[in-house]
């Protein structure tokens, strides 16, 4: 359980529910689908502010369509996480 309050898909209403639907509809590799069926933790971490959620993940959406191959983006993300001693 996260240290900060988060809101699951089942509890979401209004703007947050809309933001979760928009995130679900983004094109993404199947491997990114969280097996627990709920919204991934890094997205739920922003759930107290749907506008912050929307603007933050617009940046990752822009990078996904930038022309840098997916494998390169994964390598960069993994290396950055490891350098920061982070599991994410």
């Amino acid at each position, binding site marked *: *359980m*996260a*240290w*900060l*309050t*988060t809101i699951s898909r089942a509890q979401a209403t209004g703007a947050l529910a809309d933001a979760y639907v928009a995130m679900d509809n983004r094109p993404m590799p199947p491997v990114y689908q*969280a*097996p*627990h069926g709920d919204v*991934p*933790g*890094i997205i*739920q*971490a*922003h759930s*107290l*502010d749907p*506008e*912050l959620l929307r*603007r*933050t993940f*617009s*940046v*990752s*959406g*822009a*990078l996904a*369509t*930038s*022309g*840098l191959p997916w494998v*390169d*983006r994964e*390598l*960069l*993300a*993994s*290396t*950055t*996480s*490891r*350098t*920061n*001693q*982070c*599991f*994410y």
Partner: protein
Amino acid sequence: MAVLQGDDESLAPRARTLARLAVTLTARPWALTAEAVGDARRQGLDEEQIEAAIGVISLFNYFTRVADATGIEFDYPTALPAFEPDLGQVTAPRPDRPVWFSRPAGGRRRPRLEGLRAAWESWRVYVLEADQPISQRERRLLAAVAAEEATDWEGAEAFESGSDTDDQLIGFARKLSRQPWRMGEGDLERLRSLGYSEEAVLHVISVVAHQNADSRLALGLGAMT
């Protein structure tokens, strides 16, 4: 696996170049040189791809700090051994602020990729300029500490503490910037004890994490010229 094991020698040359770019911009952003960017060009990346690479590294300097500060759990089962952070990892010493600093001509460097520039700017304005649920003054203070920790002298405004609460915010921003892997639930409890709501705590985390990303974006793009 090679990246996860910290063994970039076993990677292909292009992957090794990208991995080194990510390590440097993340751990020693002041040390990213035009030569490192030149290595990426020699591996066949064009200017837009290099810009996107710097964007990915910078964005993940945001996500990792949000993950570490909020205590979210891992979403995916894996056959690999569970990741155990090295809590004793030592942060590279930061160089001092230079006595003379000249701002680059043309202002702070921003992405040329239109979609990335627009999305980043919309994000930046919301995180750094909103006046709820924390004040603009609090945002400036947190961002100034994070920019200083990234040695982003162009983005690091002068700041000073005016209260015990300011001291706590400065300490929080330094820890999350410098050693995010050492964040704990107690760090959030201290903010709550000062009266910060759950949404305000999210914004404190977001400002610090965002400035870590924004400073690396500016320093990375600066190395492209």
